[in-house]
């Protein structure tokens, strides 16, 4: 069973609706895609907040350990003990590895709405050409990914600045410790 195709056909009526609000095709596409980006952003923020909240204890543990080793390595450096600095720095690396990869897994995993959005756009608008680069730049034609990526990043930036003013989101972020 092709679950991806099932998922895409299930969300299709909901996602395509905003694309039909305007008469002008290009304007309608940008409006619909911007709204898609808003949905992806909201789901991303909820996923991230949930991740940070559920893992807050573990994050605190590994981050504290990383900072502790880092401080001690710098103390050794300041005292002129190069051998101890390198040894403790290595411990700091190990501790950092756990912090980094845990945060990385949570962070990148929260991008799932953006990628599934791209999968839906591929099905709907995969063959549409938006821009064509001039000949001296290879004459390449730009598809949906370029404007989608731009709109998504803009949406994330706007949302980051406004999220504490959105009812419910402020509390969600505070509880997750992401202020």
């Amino acid at each position, binding site marked *: 069973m*092709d*679950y*991806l195709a099932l998922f*895409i056909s299930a969300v299709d009526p909901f996602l395509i609706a905003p694309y039909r609000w305007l008469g002008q095709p290009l304007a309608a596409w940008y409006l619909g895609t911007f709204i898609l980006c808003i949905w992806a952003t909201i789901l991303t923020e909820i996923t991230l907040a949930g*991740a940070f909240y*559920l*893992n807050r204890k*573990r*994050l605190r543990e590994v981050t504290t350990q*990383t900072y*502790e080793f880092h*401080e*001690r*390595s*710098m*103390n050794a*450096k*300041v005292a002129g003990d190069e051998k101890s600095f*390198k*040894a403790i*720095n*290595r*411990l*700091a*690396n190990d501790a*950092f*590895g*756990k912090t*980094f*990869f*845990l945060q*990385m*897994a*949570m*962070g*990148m*995993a929260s991008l*799932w*709405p*953006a*990628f*599934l959005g*791209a*999968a839906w756009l*591929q099905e709907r608008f995969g*063959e549409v*050409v938006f821009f064509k680069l001039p000949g*001296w730049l*290879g004459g*390449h*034609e*730009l*598809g*949906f*990914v*370029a*404007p989608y*990526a*731009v709109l998504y*990043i803009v949406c994330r930036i706007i949302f980051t600045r406004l999220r504490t003013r959105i009812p419910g989101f402020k509390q969600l972020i505070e509880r997750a410790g992401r202020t």
Partner: protein
Amino acid sequence: MRRNVWLITVLTLLLGLTGLVWAQAEKASDFASAGAPAKIKEAIEKSLADQGQAAKTKEVIKTDAEPGFLGLKGAPKQNLIVGLLWAVWVGWIFSTVGAFGGIMAGVGHITIFGLADYAKSFGKGHPLNTTITDSIRVSNQWLVGLSGIISSFNYYRMGRLVYPLGICLAIGGIGGSWLIPELTAGKISLSRYIGYFGIIVFIIGLFLIYELTPKGAAKKKAAKAAAAAFEKAVKDKADTAGQGVKVVEGSQIFMWIGVILAVASALWINLVSGSQWVAYILIIAALVLTIMIGQIKFTFFGVEFKFKAWIPMVGGFVIAAVASFLGVGGGFLYVPFLTSVAGLPMFLVAGTSALAVLVGMIASIFSYMVGKGVVISWGLIGAELVGIFIGSMIGPRTSKYIPDKVLKIIFIILAFYVGLRYTTKGFLGYSIVPPY
């Protein structure tokens, strides 16, 4: 604020240009669905022009079957449940052990989803074999490279980026990241790819084993003793004004010109058809300028650090080349390289290497997807990200029940198993460990 806008604009333009590959509309082929990416259709057309390859194409692709991976008829369909479960495993690894998650993600793309065996069925040198191999490589890169995007902005906000170090890494990284796709995209068969993948996994396994030897364990014990000795803060540290990064020495002009030339080389090789020698001249000029920067000195925590500019440049080049070739290995290699070879503190290296991973990822993905037209399955990566998220929630809850040493032993066994299987399958044509 203005710098943020610049950075975001540049990144957005580069990311956005990955859309080039999907825009070309071509007529449908008998062997792929109408919606299949143009690159797949091109590979099919190319194979049909050669008698031997055409026979293989007709043998492997079932024209009356449903489209599967990348729109190829009869290709494995992405079993999202299996993909999700494997991704949960990957997320669990990321959040417990840390490194090795990228390797597991690569194993998923190669083996779990059946893509490798399908690519191999076309035979060595077949355009579809190399196209699917390249798709696997880039899919690996997307998953691992996304870490760079998330962490870079955080570290930048925290002031933990040493920009001269980042620039030297980036110059080398950009060079390594486009040279590899330029030299290898469309030329590496699946067998060779998994062979090299297996070798890298072996090397990682050897590093893990060293840590468990008496010598490795003794080193760690001595380091912990040293850490305990330096627990108390230095008396004057609290009011040290120079706790942030301050660059004291290093030619800024050469640095900035070098990175501009490096970026120009990547853009040229991927966008301009013809006169490719210009890109090679540009990157060589960037590398030479980096050597001419000489020594870079900066202070942090009131302490002076210095490094020769060519060291991170060479390291960035090699690491980015390996990461670009295999799709794994960038993230965890930068930090030990910079702390051991350049002698820099982890605090600064962490943030700066996240930026290097990001720059390398953008350059490499841009080169593969724009320059070479490699395609990936967005839905598959989306489903994998869901699984990684779930795994990263489970990991912290199980880590307290599994000692670090036990985790390391598990991964050493896995590393040797994966390394043995892929190396032998890749270079000998058969695996010496089951499943054969």
